[in-house]
């Protein structure tokens, strides 16, 4: 039987609803759009699948995330119906065992789930890959990133200070979503590196720390740019020196132009950075989780731990340094995004398009 729905319209009724939702434990601390059935149904009707269809089991609780529940969280986050396929794809991606969602959401580490959107459909949905792409101003970026985080809280059960044991937390646990600036890139986009077709629409998720700025307005060639980038990436407190995984380097358009003009390919850049971001055992022996118990570090076999001058790479392989281009015009900047020590996972949104 269809319930009789009253639609209180007074400011007091709205306030009561918003405050009840705020106190329900279903929010990230900010007010949410009420998940009114009509809104949720509209969102579900725009994707392939039914409301009770399970997208993935979400750790740490292991609760099945249905399309309906994900859509309710997407409504609460402020998504439009056309954003839901991106949220569903992101849910699938974080549930991939290589992402290790349970570990990521329970860890003491300072990381949050970054979503990188790519593909021809991103313009129609309004994703920002130009100026201030990490900041406010784009509903798609803000709402899709927030929807993923609300799902991880509400469905996955990653309750702050209870299950999520992060020492500091991360602003990206509110929202953390950008898109690739494919027209400004001299290379194929990230999804092609990850095995997807150029004309596919994808999301890539990554357990990411904050973007670390790399500024340089006067570079005259790739070596100057990449030497400064490598130095900015070589922080001995990064977990990657001890456990590997992927890292992300996002070039701003001005820096990408320097590399494009010189004809450098992605493998060229990756190989150079892999060489130039190494740190000696004499420094790394104090850091990480195991300190002087060097045998516990996940280092390549060819590292001679008895030789303090041995150089340890930031990540194991050059291709573990994921490259892309994003951001607006202006003085030269890039950003380096290290993470928790796991992998970037890419999924297509196509299966969710109706």
């Amino acid at each position: 039987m269809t319930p009789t729905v009253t639609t209180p319209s007074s400011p007091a009724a709205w306030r009561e609803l918003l405050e009840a939702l705020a106190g329900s434990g279903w929010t990230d601390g900010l007010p949410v759009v009420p998940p009114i059935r009509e809104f949720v149904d509209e969102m579900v009707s725009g994707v392939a699948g039914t409301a009770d269809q399970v997208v993935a089991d979400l750790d740490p609780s292991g609760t099945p995330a249905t399309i309906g529940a994900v859509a309710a969280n997407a409504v609460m986050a402020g998504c439009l119906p056309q954003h839901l396929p991106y949220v569903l794809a992101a849910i699938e991606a974080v549930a991939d065992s290589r992402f290790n969602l349970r570990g990521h959401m329970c860890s003491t580490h300072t990381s949050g789930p970054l979503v990188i959107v790519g593909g021809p459909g991103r313009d129609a949905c309004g994703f920002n890959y130009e100026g201030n792409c990490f900041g406010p101003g784009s509903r798609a970026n803000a709402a899709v990133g927030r929807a993923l985080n609300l799902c991880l809280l509400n469905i996955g059960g990653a309750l702050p200070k209870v299950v999520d044991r992060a020492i500091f937390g991360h602003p990206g646990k509110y929202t953390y979503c950008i898109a690739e600036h494919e027209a400004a890139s001299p290379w194929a986009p990230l999804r092609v590196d990850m095995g997807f077709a150029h004309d596919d629409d994808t999301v890539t998720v990554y357990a990411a720390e904050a973007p670390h700025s790399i500024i340089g307005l006067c570079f005259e060639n790739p070596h100057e740019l990449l030497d400064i980038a490598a130095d900015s990436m070589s922080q001995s407190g990064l977990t990657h020196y001890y456990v590997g995984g992927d890292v992300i380097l996002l070039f701003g358009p001005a820096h990408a132009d320097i590399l494009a003009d010189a004809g450098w390919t992605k493998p060229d850049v990756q190989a150079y950075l892999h060489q130039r971001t190494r740190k000696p055992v004499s420094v790394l022996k104090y850091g990480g989780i195991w300190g002087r118990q060097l045998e516990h570090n996940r280092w390549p076999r060819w590292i001679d731990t008895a030789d303090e001058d041995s150089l340890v790479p930031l990540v194991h392989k050059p291709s573990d340094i994921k490259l892309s281009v994003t951001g607006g015009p202006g003085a030269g900047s890039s950003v380096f995004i290290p993470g928790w020590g796991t992998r970037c996972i890419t999924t297509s949104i196509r299966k969710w398009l109706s």
Partner: protein
Amino acid sequence: LDTTLDKLIKDWDLVMPAPRGLASVTRPVARRLSSLTNARGAFLDNSKDNAATLLQELGKLLHAEFGTAEPTFFSKPLHTRIAPESQIGEAARMEFAVIAIGD
């Protein structure tokens, strides 16, 4: 609050975005053992020292106080990755498993 929220869910016809509390999660729970005597236990740590210390002490206590078999310890190769299938498979052959994390 729950009463208010329940009324608002009905009045506004809201779709619940989550189960009400973790108790409603439907993940299957491991079968309870009728006895710990001679039960073989797998103790899996997340590769961090404090986890291993905790589990080693727990394994000793269970053996001494409850008569479990000698504990078998496993350590994940890396805390940021899930345990390898080989470890999970070996642990699954035991009667019970205990996992721990620790910094």
